[in-house]
């Protein structure tokens, strides 16, 4: 039995789905990264709400970039996705405030999250096919299983499509 539902992926959590109609959501990503993995042929999707560039994994592997990628890959494979077919879409990694501690050559945590997530994807040989990262605005990401599709919404703006299996890829 499949029931369609909106699944909230909170900070440090991850979720996967192959049920058409399911929507995986991370609300209010600031410096955090919404890491979306998609196998379009098998219509499988996953979303992790990554908080930090290093550390862990502890009891929350989705929290850290280095453990979030392999954890999400494993969960998708269990669901029938094929590793070599996986593609990534990245959302978030903004710098909402520029604190002094980002100085002296140190990147802010949003940029470090982005960098660490891309490095982990690179190590897993998963290409990033679309992204909305950096800048200084918060974002909400929705990953629609079945189609699959990724839409992003910034504060005070409308929802826009970042990736659609049907419509190719958007910027």
């Amino acid at each position, binding site marked *: 039995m499949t029931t369609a539902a909106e699944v909230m992926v909170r900070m440090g959590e991850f979720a996967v789905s192959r049920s058409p109609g399911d929507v995986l959501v991370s*609300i*209010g990503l*600031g*410096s955090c990264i919404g890491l979306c993995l998609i196998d379009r042929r098998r219509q499988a999707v996953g979303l992790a709400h990554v908080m930090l560039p290093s550390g862990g994994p502890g009891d929350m592997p989705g*929290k850290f970039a280095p453990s979030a990628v392999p954890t999400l890959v494993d969960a998708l494979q269990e669901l029938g996705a094929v590793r070599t077919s996986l593609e990534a879409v990245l959302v978030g990694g903004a710098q909402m405030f520029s*604190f002094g501690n980002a100085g002296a050559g140190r990147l802010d945590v*949003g940029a470090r999250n982005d960098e660490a997530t891309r490095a982990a994807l690179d190590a897993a040989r998963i290409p990033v096919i679309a992204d909305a990262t950096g800048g200084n*605005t*918060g974002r909400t990401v929705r990953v629609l299983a079945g189609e699959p599709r990724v839409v992003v919404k910034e*504060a005070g703006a409308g929802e826009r499509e970042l990736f659609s299996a049907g419509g190719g890829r958007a910027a």
Partner: protein
Amino acid sequence: MTTYSDLQIDALRELANIGSGTAATALSGMLGAPVDISVPNPLLLPLNEAVEAVGPVDSEVTGVAIGIVGDMEATVLMLFTPETSEVLCPMLGVEAHTEIALSAMQEIGNVLGASYTGALGMMTGLELEPVPPQAAHDMLGAIVASVLLAPGEDRDAVLLLDSDLSVEGGAECSPSFMFIPSAGGVDELLTRLGMA
């Protein structure tokens, strides 16, 4: 998980109470209206739970963050709902939800942050200095998470001392005021209070 005794929490709460009381007096002088303040509510939570404890992650807020540096590190975060901004901004002679409103709120943060830091330094004997405030208008989740995660390091728990200011004068106007010491900052404060 990191824990503190009731006595330690009470001491930190009292510290935050005096700090935010001083800040409320500064705000009252700025607005020319009485400002009440609630006793700080201490929250000791894992990072991922702390954000949701502050408020609905998708609600729209203006956040002003003031860093405190020196002998210890901390952040003061003020949050203004759109309703609060609509009451507060005219009191400062600016129109709500404009660029200039954002700088007016940043200025509130400047004054309150400086008085808070001053009070904290006086009570503890620590050399503290406020960093110029930063303002952002966005989703609550994005703002609070970015402040908590700014050090870029994992910690098992974060301590938040949350108080509500309430500006008198008809409509609801309650900026929330949060003191967020770094992990080392909590220990430093407790040491100074002789309660480590």
